[in-house]
């Protein structure tokens, strides 16, 4: 019974198209988000992440396509959907001249939520002073208010547009914890980000959007395996690149004592070869979003049928 519920599709977007006059917002997005998962919506600025989210919530109309949230039509049943959805906008302002608590209570009231316990608890965890006036808050503190209001009414679906934007690393970690806890409570989280590391660390699946078109939906660990990591090593002496020509190793470049390569598998063998020689410095890093896109397209992964396993559907 629980298993069955877990497979329930909470958010389903089909052939979504949204234009602002002549300008493209979203060209074609198809995806499904299952109950209880944290879904990362990844893409560079202007790719169409925010547009997709705002259409889902009925803030924008769509030109074509179909969006179902909790099985309800996103446009016709927008109020019913919003009754069960918490939302953190990517760019928002706070009503001025109010105490943070007054504003949050107002939003809580509009969400028909009687208890402010969660609000206080979240504010406490994020070190947000509820007595401060809204216009006195820094960008980071405004973002905290946004996070608190998205989670405080205890809704089933939480949609977050760039949740950690403007937050310091400690608070970011606390937000990740809050997300994980919400997931443990059975809530579904749909979050956009342009920070790959963030998506990698907390999301179960990720959809990558580029120029308004959803390119791929993938399990994060599959994506990680496919993308691999960049290994950069500075040796004491010059190194022979041929030694590293192994399956799952690509982009091998040497420059004097320096070596750089991309590893998707056989990392153990690579490290052993590296360890044979004296090392001055070593760095293993994940791809930035830009690098990921470059790699993604240059490697032609999108042309491999098995890499597109979950476009518009399951992974």
């Amino acid at each position, binding site marked *: 019974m629980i298993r069955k519920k877990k497979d329930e599709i909470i958010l389903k977007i089909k052939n979504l198209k949204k234009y*602002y006059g002549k300008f493209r917002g979203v060209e074609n997005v198809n995806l499904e988000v299952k109950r209880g998962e944290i879904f990362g919506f990844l893409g560079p600025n202007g790719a169409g992440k925010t547009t997709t989210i*705002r259409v889902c919530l009925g803030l*924008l*109309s769509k030109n074509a396509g179909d969006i179902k949230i909790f099985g309800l039509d996103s446009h016709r049943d927008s109020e019913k959907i*919003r009754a069960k*959805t918490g939302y953190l906008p990517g760019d928002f302002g706070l*009503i001025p*001249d109010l105490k943070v608590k007054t504003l949050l209570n*107002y939003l809580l009231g*509009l969400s028909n939520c009687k208890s402010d316990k969660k609000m206080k608890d979240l504010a406490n965890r994020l070190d947000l002073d509820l007595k401060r006036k809204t216009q006195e808050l820094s960008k980071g503190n405004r973002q905290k208010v946004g996070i608190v209001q998205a989670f405080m009414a205890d809704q089933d679906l939480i949609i977050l547009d760039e949740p950690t934007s403007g937050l310091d690393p400690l608070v970011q970690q606390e937000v990740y914890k809050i997300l994980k806890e919400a997931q443990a409570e059975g809530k579904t989280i749909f979050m956009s980000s342009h920070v790959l590391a963030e998506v990698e660390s907390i999301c179960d699946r990720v959809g990558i959007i580029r120029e308004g078109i959803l390119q791929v939906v993938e399990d994060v660990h599959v994506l990680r395996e496919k993308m691999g990591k960049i290994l950069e090593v500075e040796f004491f002496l010059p190194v022979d690149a041929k030694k590293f020509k192994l399956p799952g190793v690509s982009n091998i470049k040497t420059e004097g004592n320096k070596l750089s390569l991309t590893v998707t598998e056989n990392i153990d063998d690579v490290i052993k070869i590296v360890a044979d020689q004296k090392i001055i410095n070593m760095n293993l890093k994940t791809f930035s979003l830009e690098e990921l896109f470059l790699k993604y397209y240059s490697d032609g992964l999108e042309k491999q049928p098995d890499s597109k396993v979950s476009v518009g559907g399951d992974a």
Partner: protein
Amino acid sequence: MLGKVFFMEFLTSWKGILIFSFIVLLTAGGMPQIYPTFKETLEGDLEGEENLNIEIPAEKGENIKLSWTPQESGMSYIIVESNLLSLFPPTGVIIANNSNVSIPYDFNETRYYAVSTLNITGIDITEYLSYVFNITELYNHKFSIKNLSNTTFIGMTSTSKDKKSAFDEILDNPAYKSLTGGRVTSMAEIEGFISLEFFSWWIFLAGLFFAYISVSSLTDGFEGKHMDLIFSTPISRQHYLLEKFAALIVIAFFILLVAAGAMAGGIEQIGYSHELSSYTVFLAIIGSLPMLSVIMAIGFLSAVVFRSTRAGMGIAFLFVMVEFILFTVASLVGSLEGAKYATIMHYWDYNSVLYDGLFKTADFIGLFVVTGVILMLAIYVFKKKDIPA
């Protein structure tokens, strides 16, 4: 959920309401304070009347004798006669070399006389007189006004003690009468004074304020980017707009109560409440509520169409101006009288309340119906349009 937006409107706009209430308190309460002094001025002696002596014969056909204290020797005098206190246009001009004149008494109306010394050096007096009756030509004419500059005003008098004020003469003009529904009004009466000095420009004072708060009430949300937070909650756009409007109606009603209370208190304080009762004042002022509600509905409509304070405010202010100008022009120009019925001001007949004690309930309700129609249009547009990011 019900009432949250309603109460938030008070919480966010109380400073503006307080400041505007204070302005209303000063104007509505202060205006009656001027009235007694104003009335005294209108009903008092004419300027310099004590310098003149007028003898009016008992029978017509004889001469009126007008004399005054002689000025420097050899001085000439100019006596301007008119049947209007404003002396324009004059019915006659007399040049005298002595300090008295005789004027034939062959008219029925009240006539006014103003006497000044006249330095006619270098002026052809015949030519001068030919231009006195046409002020435009006088000013455009070759001879210099400087030649007339060292005249000294001696005084004014009239053939009757029952004289009208210059204001009342203007109000007697048919054009002005059309603005008061054909009523003969007088600035010397409290109704006339309040009608002209307060009610005639109330649409500007209150209309522009409510145009401003109605437009900004919505555009603040668009421009301040609060809308995404609000509409991530289950509230509908229709509900949000209607609750805000309900709050603004309550605010408008409160402001009108302040205005009515201040004015009634002011009239009571100067001791004229027996002439204009507090009840009448309340009815006349509260009667403007639906007119303001139409202005606020226009404010909402322009706010949701343009989603910008500047553009929305421009349209709402333009509406108030056009309404006022159209109503005034339609009242003054007979051929355009029909256009008056298309203005909201026509349906707030405060003169009818002030003079006849008649409150036009159908007009009052009618404007609320118009408000409803405009609001429905605003809701339709608000629902249709995207909420800007």
